């Protein structure tokens, strides 16, 4: 099986799927993301991104979550 590429949630293409590999950030940010179900090992699907460094929307376990560009750029996922 081929290993997927490591990309950030901000870079993922619309509709692309992946598994969260790591999140770079302080404990507070990790906690906030974790409370919404985003943590390493989770399957995610990119729903949409916006122009001008706007937020990205990703889907985790059937639940859509909008994440600001900065945070989304620090979530790394291994794409399928």
């Amino acid at each position, binding site marked *: 099986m081929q290993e997927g590429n490591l990309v950030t949630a901000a870079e993922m293409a619309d509709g692309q799927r992946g598994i969260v590999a790591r999140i770079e950030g302080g404990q507070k940010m990790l906690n906030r993301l974790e409370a919404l179900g985003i943590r390493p090992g989770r399957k995610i699907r990119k729903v949409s991104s916006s122009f001008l*460094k*706007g937020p990205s929307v990703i889907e985790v376990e059937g639940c*859509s979550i909008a994440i*600001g560009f900065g*945070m989304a750029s620090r979530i790394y996922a291994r794409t399928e």
Partner: protein
Amino acid sequence: MKILLVGNPNVGKSVVFSRLTGVHVLSSNYPGSTVSYTNGFMKLGGEQVEITDVPGTYTLDPTCEAEKVAREMLGHGDLIIDVVDATNLERNLYLTLQLLERNTPMVVALNVWDDARHHGIDIDLEKLEAALGVPVVPTVAVSGEGMKQLVEALPRAAVPSHPARSSAERWMAVGEIVGRVQQVSHRHHTWKERLADATLRPVSGALIAAAVLAGIFIGVRLASEGLIARVMDPLFDGLWAPVVLRVSRLLGGGGLLHDIVVGDVAGETVHFVESFGLLTSGLYVPIAMVFPYILSFYLALGLLEDSGYLPRLAVMLDTLMHRLGLHGYAIIPTMLGFGCNVPGVMATRVLESRRERFIAATLISIAVPCASLQAMIFGLVGQRGGRYVLLVYAVLFLVWMGLGFVLRRLVRGFTPELLIEIPPYRLPSPRAIVQKLWARVRGFFVEAIPLVLGAVLVINLLYSFGLFDAIADFCAPVVTTVLGLPRESVAALAVGFLRKDVALGMLAPLDLTAGQLVVGSVVLAMFFPCIATFIVLLREIGLRGLAKSTGIMLAATLVTGGILNLLLD
């Protein structure tokens, strides 16, 4: 005994609360519609128990003001009903385990149970009960299903001994429980979901957002105008005017009492806006002019809230809002502010940082006209031509943008990035929409109409004692030179502190030019928020915040009014 309703945001706690207590609380389809707690009572085994609807929270480590409220309340409960969204078991159980570690008797209401089944999610209730050690009751709060069973389960509330865990251990435990109790049949994305995604994509989403906002603006206007022209005006002109004339004759056609009760009524026609008596303007302004707008705006807002579109609008506007020192979610308090600034300012609690709350509350109180004022702008400025109405809105929009841009630079602190859950679209239930509309309309009648009547009374008394002249002399130089408004309009600006709609009505008899009326409307919208808004501002951003906000408001009003006066003169 005190029961607390606790759970993640947007799982339906407020609906469960309304079902249990019969007390109606506003509920919507977006996280954070409950920003403060509500208490109600229900009978339980012959005993009167108090139930509290706690704002939603993902975790007991609070990240915003509303979550802080939730955490503080937990210390005061004897029993917890943990409302869990069955379609999102894993994320919800994290909070459930945190709650269980607190050793308070608890029952779990597994809500949105019907949706879970439609989504192919199968949860083994017995296993879940065993794993948690507390009763688990499947419910569909919107339809009332399972509510009886939930109440019956309350006496069985249990305190299982769950160990205190670290967050990593807790997630492990959650994963382990979910793996044991939940089966999900795989399912492909439906065309509906693809369509739903389109509201979030940059191009299609922006077009849809523009269409939705324009649709609300035009729809509310058309519906209200229709209601005024076809129902309200015929009613007042045909049925009420003869009564007013008879009362006028009975009171002798003049004198202080006559002027207070029916106002300036001459001959056989009643000018309902200009006459300024209790039975004329005092009733016509709130009922015939403002109420139709309240009704149609809140109907539109209710549909928007319950559909689940608002968080998507927040995503679409996030980039713009960051230029104003806010993030996209601030659009929700702003939209509420278009109905009434009071709930708008209160809803700023969903924002995480103090800075954001200050900016959002200040922008709402200055640049967002409430439905009452908008109704009067449409009614009075609209008579001079639609382009003047558009001018008022355009100026207020520019002020909103410009002021936000300046505040972003001036106000210290930081604005966190957007991080919100986007709820699924739901078809609003007609029953819920009607209930919510009724609650808001009743609020208008109970709170606004007495205030309008009071304002009309006070204005008449102050006029007859010559007090307005004193105020007018004091403020006249600024008002006449900078704003280019006649000296008499000072009284209207002062009344704006009580009710904006009455205040704009006071400009009606002054024979203003269209340009002056535009200046007057803009100044009234920006200048001193009404007293009710003032009080919530004080509560939400504190005395220092209020002082700063007021200074900004005065400066912005004079600058905008002054420029507008020069341009339109």
